[in-house]
């Protein structure tokens, strides 16, 4: 912020002499002032601080701290727990993203494709977005309970012995991913609905004249190309939302069994706020932030390129 022209703008006499120039600047700084202050205190400084802490061995309660360079990051690479955590997060993103993006698109098309029941179905699939996830996790804990849960009861009815969904290392991430898809699909559906309504109707009429008749080819010739930017956008924000998985792990599994469901934010939380290893936890935060920033950059790059088409 090198060009903060505050002193000049603050001169009260300037306002009368030059009502549009300096008066406007003064007003602008007064109007943005509170936001700037809160931004600096609550976001900018803490974010810079977390990066700085990541290079120290700071522990809450310790009297001294040491600059340790990349030692925390080196330790992360060696730490089996962190490597698992990173891999689990990647798995969660890799499974929930395509499922909830394709699912959201399919639902949007199916619901908007007819006249009946639009409001109703929209509400049904959107419900998880407004539901308290911690509470719904309780419901899922029951659904997937190995002995009394309806999922395994149903499987028993079919003669299949269901797994201990949340209690076994083999199935726990899959189960969490199913819950993740349930949670996210309605959000994506709504974004796709917005994208669909933006497609000009006469394009469909034109396609029909050109001999595009079936619903399927209509989708591939008109809907899909025009939804390109929406899809990319939904894709990246879904990845970022999946990357932030925390609530369901914190309530359902606490990273267990045997670290099989450790994810980035949960590992960061336990290292920092249970063991108070702030330096180490900060390093995990930096990895998390880097992943988010990379996804955002990919998004802006791709969308910028796409804009020339659309």
């Amino acid at each position, binding site marked *: 912020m090198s060009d903060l022209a505050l002193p000049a703008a603050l001169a009260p006499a300037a306002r009368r002499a030059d009502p549009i120039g300096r008066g406007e600047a003064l007003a602008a700084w007064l109007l943005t002032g509170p936001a700037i202050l809160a931004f600096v205190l609550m976001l900018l400084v*803490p974010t810079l601080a977390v990066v700085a*802490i990541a290079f120290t061995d700071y522990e809450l309660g310790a009297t001294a701290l040491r600059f340790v360079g990349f030692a925390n990051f080196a330790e992360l690479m060696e730490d089996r727990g962190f490597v698992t955590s990173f891999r689990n997060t990647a798995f969660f993103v890799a499974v929930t993203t395509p499922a909830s993006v394709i699912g959201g698109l399919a639902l949007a098309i199916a619901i908007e*494709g007819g006249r009946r029941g639009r409001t109703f179905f929209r509400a049904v699939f959107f419900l998880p977005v407004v539901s308290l996830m911690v509470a719904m996790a309780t419901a899922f804990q*029951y659904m997937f309970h190995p002995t009394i849960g*309806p999922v395994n009861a149903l499987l028993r009815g079919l003669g299949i012995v269901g797994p201990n969904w949340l209690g076994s290392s083999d199935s726990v991430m899959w189960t969490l991913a199913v819950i993740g898809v349930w949670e996210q699909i309605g959000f994506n559906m709504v974004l796709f609905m917005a994208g669909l309504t933006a497609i000009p109707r006469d394009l469909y009429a034109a396609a029909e004249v050109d001999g595009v008749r079936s619903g399927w080819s209509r989708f591939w010739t008109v809907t899909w190309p025009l939804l390109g930017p929406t899809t990319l956008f939904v894709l990246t924000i*879904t990845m970022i939302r999946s990357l932030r998985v925390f609530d369901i792990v914190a309530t359902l599994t606490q990273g267990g069994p045997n670290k099989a469901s450790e994810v980035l934010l949960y590992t960061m939380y336990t290292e*920092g706020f249970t063991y108070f290893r702030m330096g180490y936890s900060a390093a995990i935060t930096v990895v998390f932030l880097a992943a988010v*920033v990379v996804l955002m950059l990919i998004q802006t790059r791709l969308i910028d390129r796409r804009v020339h088409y659309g």
Partner: protein
Amino acid sequence: MIPGSNVRSLVADLPRLAILSALGLLFLMPYLWMISVSLKPLDEVWRASMSLIPETFAIQKNYGRVLSEVPIGRYLLNGVIVCFGILVFQLAFALPAGYALAKLNFRGRETLFAFVMLGLLIPAHVPAIPLYIAFAKTGVLNSYAALIAPSTISVFAIFMFRQFFRSMPDELIQAARMDGLGEWSIVWRIVVPNAWPAATAFAIFSVVAHWNDLFWPLIAVSGKGELATPALGVVYFRTEEAGDDFGALMAAATLTTLPLVAAFLIAQRRFIEGITMTGLKG
């Protein structure tokens, strides 16, 4: 969407409706079981029956246990206080800033906007450690202030209001200036009243996000629950009280999920518009 769909008969539409209904039912299963179990006595819960309707009702026992052992009203009130507090600050900070960035000419505007874009990259989890340390050192932890302060600034709100105000006609503001209104009065008497659609959309987004947030309350509030938000309250009840009492647990889950779900069912269109408008935050 598909031309001619309005003349399609109900019969032709049936497969679509059937598929959507089946999927919808699957989606609603957690809610149905949550409510069903919250009504069942414990022995029936453990019998692993597939029936949704309880043979005997244990409403009083389950809900009674929650209401007597858990200050659920307190949690809900905390949720309201925290969400409302956050929203008031977010709007008070972001509305004027968004207006200034959209409509006023001043040196540094581009730089400020660059910081807004930079801020959009940072998820709320990132500043948590330094904020926790600072709050711990200043004794602010375990207070409403600790729950509210980190969320008072929403760069996303600034961005959204800036976009909104850019499409507002300049003439409106010029005319107000001609009438001798200062920038401050223009903001509160012309700009803000005109920003209601965007403000409502943002309010829905903000309340949904903070009512359901677990991460920061888990960090900012320790000990047992005077200050717990609904999400934190459910976690406390699960770990400290309920154990395997699924009936009571589901009753607690139902009671804490209800407020936002009810609000959504009453004002569906607003919610969906709100999330569409604010969807880009993710």
